[in-house]
C-alpha cells in the first residue's frame, strides 16, 4: 500500500476527481483548545457510512447522519459505504480503522482523555452534492454536540 495518488485509483474515479471542482474556502474557523485533553469530553465522527440494526442504511449522496450510542459494541456496526474508489475489506474486518471507538475507550481508561460523549455520529462518504450537508446536517450535528458540552471532536474519513 502507498499514498493514494490519483494514478493508483481506477481511471473513472481519477477522471472524476481531476475535474470535480470541490468546495474551496479561503478562511478557516478556529476554536483553540483551552483545557487539557485529559479533562475533555470527546465525540467521534466518521464518514464511513456505518449504521446500526434498526437504523436506515445510507443511500448514495445521502447527507443525513446516524447517531451511534457510546455504549455499542463496534462489531455491531453495519455497512460502511460501498464505493469503487476504495477497498472496504479493512473496515469490514475492523470498524476501528475508520471509527476508532475502541481505541478512544482505551484512551479514556488510561486517563489520556477526560471522557467519551454518550453519542457519536456517522455520515456517508462520497457526497458529491454537499449543499444539504453544509446547510443542514453538519450544523445540526454541531449544535447537538455543543448541547452535549463536547470539548473535542475527532473526525475520520474512509
Amino acid at each position, binding site marked *: *500500500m*502507498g*499514498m*493514494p495518488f490519483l494514478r*493508483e*485509483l481506477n481511471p473513472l474515479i481519477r477522471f472524476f476527481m481531476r475535474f470535480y471542482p*470541490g*468546495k*474551496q*474556502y479561503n*478562511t*478557516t*474557523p*478556529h*476554536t*483553540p*483548545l483551552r483545557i487539557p*485533553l485529559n479533562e475533555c469530553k470527546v465525540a467521534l*465522527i466518521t*464518514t*464511513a457510512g456505518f449504521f446500526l440494526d434498526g437504523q436506515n442504511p445510507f443511500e448514495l449522496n445521502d447527507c443525513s447522519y446516524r447517531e451511534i450510542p457510546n455504549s455499542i459494541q463496534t462489531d455491531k456496526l453495519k455497512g460502511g459505504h460501498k464505493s469503487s*474508489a*476504495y*477497498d472496504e*475489506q*479493512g*473496515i469490514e*474486518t*475492523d470498524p*476501528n*480503522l*475508520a471509527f*476508532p471507538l475502541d*481505541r*478512544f475507550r*482505551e*484512551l479514556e481508561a488510561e486517563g489520556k482523555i477526560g471522557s467519551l460523549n454518550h453519542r457519536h455520529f456517522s*455520515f*456517508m*462518504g*462520497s*457526497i458529491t452534492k*454537499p449543499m444539504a*450537508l*453544509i446547510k443542514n446536517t*453538519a*450544523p445540526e*450535528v*454541531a*449544535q447537538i454536540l*455543543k448541547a452535549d458540552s*463536547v*470539548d*473535542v*471532536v*475527532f*473526525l*475520520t*474519513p*474512509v
Partner: protein
Amino acid sequence: MCNQSVGLIQRAIEEVGISTVSITLLEDITKKVKPPRALLVPYNLGYPLGEPNNPVLQHAIIAETLALFECDDEPPILKVSQQREEK
C-alpha cells in the same frame, strides 16, 4: 469525497466553538476545504488508521492527530504523519 465531507463537517463543528482534529488521505482536497487541523496519513483510501486489528499503529496515528492541538501554527494546520507507509 469522504475527505471533503470530513472537512465540511469539521468546519461546521469548529464554528460553534468546539475544537476539532481530523485524519485525511487526500492532501489536495483538504487544502481546498481548509479544516482547522488535519493529519495526512500515507495509506490508501479505506485505511485511515493504517491497518485493521493493529491497535498499536491505530494508537500511534490517533496520538499524532491529537498532537495537532499542541501545534502553535495558525490554522489551517495540515501535518504529514510520521508513520511509514506499509510495504
